[in-house]
């Protein structure tokens, strides 16, 4: 199998540029990168067909060793059509992004960021006293949820301190949490119920 060095060099250059471009954040560059990658692959398929030869099936007198391999060319034709369709669709999407967001950049997933910023403490999962949340409360457990504290207590926070300073005296976190009830004068609950 003989290989055309020029084609091979061009293919390598196209791959290099294509990979560089798809790593960009701008959508248009990503699209250009994808187009270069598709064309580089077409050259690769062409290279796998071996030497350049005469057209097959055209003249019955042509010997079998003089043909160019027709199959890679058929494959390339198909892949050109496919990449054409995908490129057209991508252009449509990029235009739509521009219309909607006035920017040509890949945007972050908002929900992803939200999940990443979720605090480690979750009122429902991590409250030490299990809250009775059923639609059908068990009467033997009180049922009215009177034992349930709606405020996460100081011990629940991500920075779990062994003791806290309340006014002038040092008291343990558990006592501070117990005192942190409506009407308690000792500590002032912060917005999250913790001691600031």
């Amino acid at each position, binding site marked *: 199998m003989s290989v055309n060095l020029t084609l091979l060099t061009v293919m390598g250059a196209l791959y290099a540029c294509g990979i560089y471009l798809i790593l960009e954040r701008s959508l248009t560059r990503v699209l250009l990168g994808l187009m270069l990658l*598709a064309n580089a692959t077409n050259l690769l398929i062409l290279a*796998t067909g071996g030497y350049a030869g005469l057209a097959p099936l055209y003249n019955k007198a042509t010997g079998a060793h003089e043909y160019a391999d027709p199959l890679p060319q058929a494959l390339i034709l198909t892949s050109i059509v496919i990449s054409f369709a995908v490129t057209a669709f991508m252009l449509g999407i990029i235009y739509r992004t521009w219309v909607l967001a006035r920017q040509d950049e890949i945007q972050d997933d908002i929900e992803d960021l939200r999940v990443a910023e979720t605090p480690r403490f979750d009122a429902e999962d991590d409250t030490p006293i299990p809250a009775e949340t059923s639609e059908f409360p068990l009467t033997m457990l009180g049922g009215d949820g009177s034992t349930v504290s709606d405020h996460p207590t100081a011990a629940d926070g991500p920075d779990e301190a062994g003791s806290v300073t309340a006014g002038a005296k040092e008291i343990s976190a558990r006592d501070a949490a117990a005192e942190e009830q409506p009407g308690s004068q000792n500590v002032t609950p912060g917005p999250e119920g913790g001691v600031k």
Partner: protein
Amino acid sequence: MNMASFAPLAVVLPILGAALAFLLIRHSRAQRAVSIGVLSLTLLLECLLLASVWDGGTAAVNIGGWLPPWGITMVVDQFSSLMLVVSSAISLAVLVYATGQGMADGDRDAPVSIFHPTYLILVAGVSNAFLSGDLFNLYVGFEILLTASYVLMTLGGTGPRIRAGVTYVVVSVVSSVLFLISIAMVYGATGTVNMADLAVKLADLDEGTRTLLHVMLLVAFGIKAAVFPLSFWLPDSYPTAPAPVTAVFAGLLTKVGVYAMVRTETLLFPGDSLDTPLMVAALLTMVVGILGALAQSDIKRLLSFTLVSHIGYMVFGLAMSSVAGLGAAVFYVAHHITIQTSLFLVTGLIERRGGSSSVDRLAGLAKLSPILALLFFIPAMNLAGIPPFSGFLGKVGLIQAGIELGTPLAYALVIGGVVTSLLTLLAVARVWNRAFWRKPSDAEHPDPVLRAEPEDSDTGSRAGRKNVTLLPRTMVGSTLGLVVLGVSLTVFAGPLFTVSDQAAHEMLDRSAYIQAVLGEDTDVPPLALKNGGGK
């Protein structure tokens, strides 16, 4: 005339249906009738195909009379016909669901008229991928289904969908380019793209070239199947699409990737050269996927992560390359397609009824809509693998095969599989507790719909319009049908396991496939079957 010679109709019928549906774009009623009719016909044809393969063995069809390895070959064997039947049943259920949604909401919200033709083309692409007997036709099948999926993913062109669609399109195109590069390299090395011919010729290549081609193909298919290091695009892009679209993507598209991986492993590169890396990837897929699911509050995203995680089970079964393991993997694929799709459909209903798909905003749905609770509970428990459901049976099959194999890595995967199953239970139980079980007053930000008076319960003012039916009968009915199908997989697990074990045996044996394509007198390279070759 053999029934199997009608196999190309499984691709041609949906494409013709798509053309007809496109012509009827202004007559929505006729369009719905055409697409549902065409899909029913395809399903019927595929059931007949499955029956004929079951009786008559693997069959190959040469398109246009061009003999292999030069022409395009379509191969119907037990695995591909089983996948065809399951995928068409799912597509039909989702189409009925989508039609119900379209009729309930009217066509103003989204250009629903383009939905039907595109959907049929997606089905044609999936069928083509399952049937194709050569690598390049497989690539074309992938491209047909992917291009249709780009359109479905960005249906309506809203901001979030476009944002998700960009990621999806770019990742898919890159994986397709990788696949095409592998095809070019395979052709350069062997001079053929016919899979049966490759099965014979790849054995003659030297070890390094074989491994390179093997890895290239597995990476390309691994992106499509969302195997762990290549899975990050999936939870990012699937949840934003319309509910029926997400459901059909979750059910089918990743499984086409798994199907291609199975063919690569069993037909093209048999032996266990890459089994160890595949097993590690399977373990990571299971564990990392399910840990991601636990962090989510949006049900659709949570389900997308469980989808990634459960792909790990299938890769696990595949990587064992024993009859028991592969058979369990085939069973698991059929089970998971059904269950994952029904869960996404139910989530669509939850979103309609409860006004949100976030567990922070949902509450008290069990009292508000008991049917919805039932529809969620059964597939959720099935997904988590609670006995006696099919999820349990599939996992037991995989775990048995893993213990049979007995290597330390196989034991690690068995433990990983059990842990993943428990964590899946935790994830779906969290959704259940919050969305269905707790009182609306206990929720932090309950959706106003949940506090509405009972007489307003089946109509609402969603999307600024009055009198929207929140739970149309067609949508509930098709979801119910899928849930019943999932339960029937439990009831008929015995026969299904027989089919999948036989499919696995045939795939590992390879001679039926190769001889069906290349003729009875082809020499099949010898191959050691593990575990005595039978169960």
